[in-house]
């Protein structure tokens, strides 16, 4: 292909050169006779030189564009490659030129990446599945032990606390299974019109109760009537998840503010809480699995460390977006945007 383009360029330059030389020498002969050398040269330059320049710039631009177009297409296609579409190949021309070879190499690379990603996902899925059988046995046997009425109180406490840890492990394994399945595209949501404002009000009640123990004050700023197309169970999970974080990572006597503002095309749900917050450099990693934003909580955190990853998956599965802003020791705000079906301000 490169040969073709350079051939065309060379040929056209030659043609222009020959024509110019021809014209130039002819005119020159005539002008020498008429003794109007300078004027003639000017005319020649104006009538032949300028169009030639314009033509070569235009032609060159056109040729370069044509030559580079496949590169631009390839760049655009590569830009679209992410961990979600590694199984898609870039389109090839199969004409065997350099760009086609490059595309082939890139396709082979994404295929290798895809294979490794799939292996990791499969591993997580199988690992969490395999862990469930021994966990079921351990939980079941421990619970059976605990049901023995002749146990003395200290043994009972010991076994019960072991069961607590087993249940926490089960929660982590369940969270991992959920995410691994979501990665593999194995989860289908049951979508139906859902009144988001009712879910928010419902959770607001629960949050108030959860917050009571740490003397937090919870306010519902606004709650516009909003209908979204969603899986109600997953939205409840999302709300409780975010609320639980707002309570857990708060400070004694702190506040939580919840708002649901509806607008076309997206409803905006915000949950803000006081507390230590997350340092700016850690913020981008906050949705990562098992990432703990606040080292101070490391030792005492309940829950499974997958809450925000699960929240992020739920929002993405509903074609929405989630983001966090945080000013350490002041306010941390989670914003969720979900596409709405209908809305009207309350």
């Amino acid at each position, binding site marked *: 292909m490169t040969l073709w383009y350079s051939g065309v360029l060379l040929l056209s330059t030659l043609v222009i050169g020959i024509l110019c030389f021809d014209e130039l020498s002819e005119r020159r002969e005539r002008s020498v006779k008429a003794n109007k050398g300078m004027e003639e040269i000017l005319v020649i330059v104006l009538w032949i030189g300028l169009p030639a320049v314009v033509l070569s710039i235009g032609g060159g631009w056109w040729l370069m564009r044509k030559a580079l177009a496949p590169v631009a297409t390839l760049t655009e296609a590569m830009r679209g490659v992410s961990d979600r579409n590694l199984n898609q190949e870039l389109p090839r021309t199969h004409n065997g030129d350099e760009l086609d070879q490059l595309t082939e190499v890139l396709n082979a690379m994404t295929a290798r990446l895809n294979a490794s990603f799939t292996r990791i996902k499969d591993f997580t899925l199988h690992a969490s599945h395999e862990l*469930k059988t021994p966990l079921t046995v351990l939980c079941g046997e421990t619970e*059976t032990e*605990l049901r023995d009425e002749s146990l003395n109180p200290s043994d009972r406490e010991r076994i019960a606390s072991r*069961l607590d840890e087993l249940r926490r492990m089960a929660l982590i394994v369940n969270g991992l299974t959920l995410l691994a399945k979501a990665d593999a595209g194995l989860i289908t949501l049951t979508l139906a019109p859902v009144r988001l404002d009712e879910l928010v009000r419902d959770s607001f009640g629960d949050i108030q109760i959860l917050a009571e123990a740490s003397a937090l004050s919870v306010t519902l700023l606004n709650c516009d009537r909003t209908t979204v197309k969603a899986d109600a169970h997953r939205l409840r999970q999302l709300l409780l*998840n975010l609320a639980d974080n707002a309570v857990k990572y708060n400070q004694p006597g702190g506040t939580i503010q919840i708002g649901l503002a509806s607008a076309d095309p997206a409803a905006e749900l915000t949950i803000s809480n006081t507390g230590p917050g997350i340092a700016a450099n850690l913020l981008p990693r906050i949705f990562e699995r098992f990432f703990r934003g606040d080292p101070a909580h490391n030792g005492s955190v309940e829950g499974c460390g997958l809450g925000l990853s699960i929240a992020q998956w739920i929002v993405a599965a509903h074609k929405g977006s989630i983001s966090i802003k945080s000013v350490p020791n002041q306010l941390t705000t989670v914003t969720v945007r979900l596409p709405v079906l209908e809305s009207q301000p309350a």
Partner: protein
Amino acid sequence: MRVLVIEDEKKTASFIRKALQAEGYAVDVCHDGDEGFVAPSATPYDAIVLDIMLPGRDGLSILRRWRQGHNRIPVLLLSARGDVIERVEGLDAGADDYLPKPFALVELAARVRALTRRGGDTKATVLRLADLSLDTITRRVRRGESDIELTAREYRLLEYLMQSTGRLCGRMMILEKVWDYDFDPGTNLVDVYIRRLRGKIDTAFEPKLLHTVRGIGYVLKQPPA
């Protein structure tokens, strides 16, 4: 009441049997699908606990064949996969309930109980325990001579506990019945509500009715005299 447990994992089958026996059921266990498939034709069962992954025939195809043969015995499906699709698939195949592994025994027992008393439920409109009463029509709750004000959620929690009087209620079952959650949120929501409810119906009264069984769940009952 006789229950059949079809579960290939021997330890799991064994503690399921113990838990159900403790509830007063007679329990038979099969460890593979082919054996389990024919068992109900020899013995009449009141309920069947069926694992999905089995050697021989798998749980779902066993269930479909039973239902095609008009066998209507209540079935509780157990599964280690535990996703939404499988839940729907299981219920479509004719299961009456579904429980993902790992589960709490108290949840399993509650579900089997619900299956075996289906239809025979008492339809009393006023639930009573000692001097505590709950009117399901007027939604009025009284303990002794005092009226008790409950929020909607607290009311539903108490109603569920009173419907299960004397029986252990696990956290998951409570979340499902009272909150309509199909997931374990991993919060102490239930414990916090139980504490509030206890403050309203128990703290100022004797005898105490709402009891916590550490590690297992809650039970509403009159203490043995």
